[in-house]
């Protein structure tokens, strides 16, 4: 059973991207200046502010959100044994988005600090409960259908909020937020969502053996001692925590959860359990790379992260469909 050094290589790449993320932006900060002033005091202070108050939380948020999306995508693909499953499958990201949109729509976001992520989290948890209640007692197909119907409901609510937006400014705010970004997020937001993402990822990380057994189908997995209802509950809870928290801060960032597992799966012999850690690292790396991309593209207005991942991810998705068409009978 040969193993490739997949995890160390991905971890190294992620570390490089993390550092690169600290140094790229509109303002070029020479590493020398950041590491301990050679320039004048005011310049060093500005550099410190940009680094500590803007870029560090941005890079950390990118790391956590990307990891959450990549891991959750891998877990859901393993659970459903469907390579096209992604973190939005259970309706949780649409629920988080609706909660956040309600905060912006109602004006609460302007009055209460952290109203947007708090309502986003509430939306994520309520959606998870709704999907769970609808899918309860049924099999995998019922759960997927429950997720997509709940997702449809949440998307309709979001569209309603845009439609009824009290003023053009609110509509603009909502649509900008929905595009998805990790720019200009505060340490407070990170401190709120960070622990949820870490706990959610820990829950999802523990599903490996069950996902492996599920490769043999539900009946054989049960014969191997896997408690499927408990597994589904754990995955829904983990997704609500990790992806719900990520989405409530960043907005919708598509395709990373779908693509990251596919980028690494062939490196670990397609084993669902061994996909988890590489997919987590890969999700974080892809998100950070895309975010660096938004800052490097020479455009008048910075491209939103969600737009860039969509532009790059959709062709990848199409390629995946074409490959499936060729290999599937």
């Amino acid at each position: 059973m040969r193993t490739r050094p997949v995890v160390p290589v991905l971890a190294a790449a992620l570390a490089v991207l993390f550092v690169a993320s600290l140094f790229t932006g509109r303002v070029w900060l020479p590493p020398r200046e950041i590491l301990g002033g050679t320039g004048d005091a005011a310049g060093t202070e500005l550099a410190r502010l940009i680094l500590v108050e803007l870029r560090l939380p941005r890079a950390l948020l990118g790391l956590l959100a990307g990891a959450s999306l990549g891991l959750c995508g891998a877990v859901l693909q393993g659970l459903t044994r469907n390579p096209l499953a992604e973190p939005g499958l259970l309706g949780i990201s649409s629920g988080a988005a609706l909660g956040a949109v309600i905060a912006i729509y109602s004006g609460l976001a302007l009055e209460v600090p952290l109203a947007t992520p708090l309502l986003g989290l509430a939306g994520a948890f309520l959606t998870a409960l709704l999907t769970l209640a609808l899918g309860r007692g049924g099999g995998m197909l019922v759960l997927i259908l429950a997720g997509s119907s709940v997702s449809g409901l949440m998307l309709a609510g979001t569209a309603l909020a845009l439609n009824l937006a009290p003023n053009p400014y609110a509509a603009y705010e909502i649509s900008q937020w929905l595009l998805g970004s990790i720019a200009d997020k505060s340490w407070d937001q990170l401190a709120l969502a960070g622990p949820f993402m870490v706990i959610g990822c820990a829950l999802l990380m523990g599903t490996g053996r069950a996902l492996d057994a599920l490769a043999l189908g539900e009946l054989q997995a049960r014969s191997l001692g896997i408690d499927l209802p408990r597994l589904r509950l754990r995955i829904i809870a983990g997704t609500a925590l990790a992806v719900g928290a990520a989405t409530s801060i960043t907005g919708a960032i598509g395709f990373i959860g779908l693509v990251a597992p596919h980028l690494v799966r062939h490196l670990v012999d397609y084993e669902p359990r061994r996909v988890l850690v590489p997919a987590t690292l890969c999700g974080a790396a892809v998100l950070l790379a895309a975010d660096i991309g938004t800052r490097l593209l020479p455009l008048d207005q910075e491209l939103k992260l969600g737009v860039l991942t969509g532009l790059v991810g959709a062709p990848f998705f199409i390629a995946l469909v074409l490959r499936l068409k060729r290999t599937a009978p």
Partner: protein
Amino acid sequence: MIRLAAEGLSFAIARRRIVWNVAFEAGGGEFIALIGPNGAGKSTLLTLLAGLAPPTVGRVTVDGTPLAALKAAELARRRAYLPQNPRCDWPIPVERLVALGLTPSLPSFGDFDAEDRRRIDAAIAACDLEAHRAQAATTLSGGELARAMLARALVGDPHLLIVDEPLAGLDPRHAIDTVRRLRALAVEEGRLVIAAMHDLNLALRHATRVWAVSSGNLVADGSPREVVDAPLLQSLFDVPARVHADADGEGARVEFG
């Protein structure tokens, strides 16, 4: 040695009786062939015995303990179950597929230890899969996959092995190999093996006991030579049947039509 027993075992869906009032006692050392026509309730009976469906009435006990009272992981360590036409959804290598049989005893994280590897190697060798070790399971032929799945079931060294049509899709040589292996597990190693089979000639020659199922009822239970005769087969399968004893007295040949 393990003891398996059922009393008043019944299973119904929407008031339709699938399994009706089955009772038996069986123990390690027996290789039981489950025979009967399509739709007789063989597969349902096997899932009930494996503890994968709750009986409507009655119960199954392992060494006196009802299946329902056993923890899923503990039951999984003692019995292995293979459904009909098992398949694998990801193209994982055969040796990893076989290793999945160790799931109940593996820790949540970490790789296999030396003992696990020894068991995996032994199961792969026993099922004649060395040439396919690194091959993706989804690219195996039907018969090769059936052997890989059997190795998956054997790797954990279960005391109770329940297999639904293990010979489906196997060529004559591998069918004979498999049925001999099932018999050896029972007779030489003291395991209890219960297998649904359609190849009656192999069942009569190698099984130590035959269960005939018809419309959910256990209509015959005993050693192959005692219970399998032309009238039973005729009533089970609804075609004229003849049974010729083999010259060596070990088995019999069944002819239909």
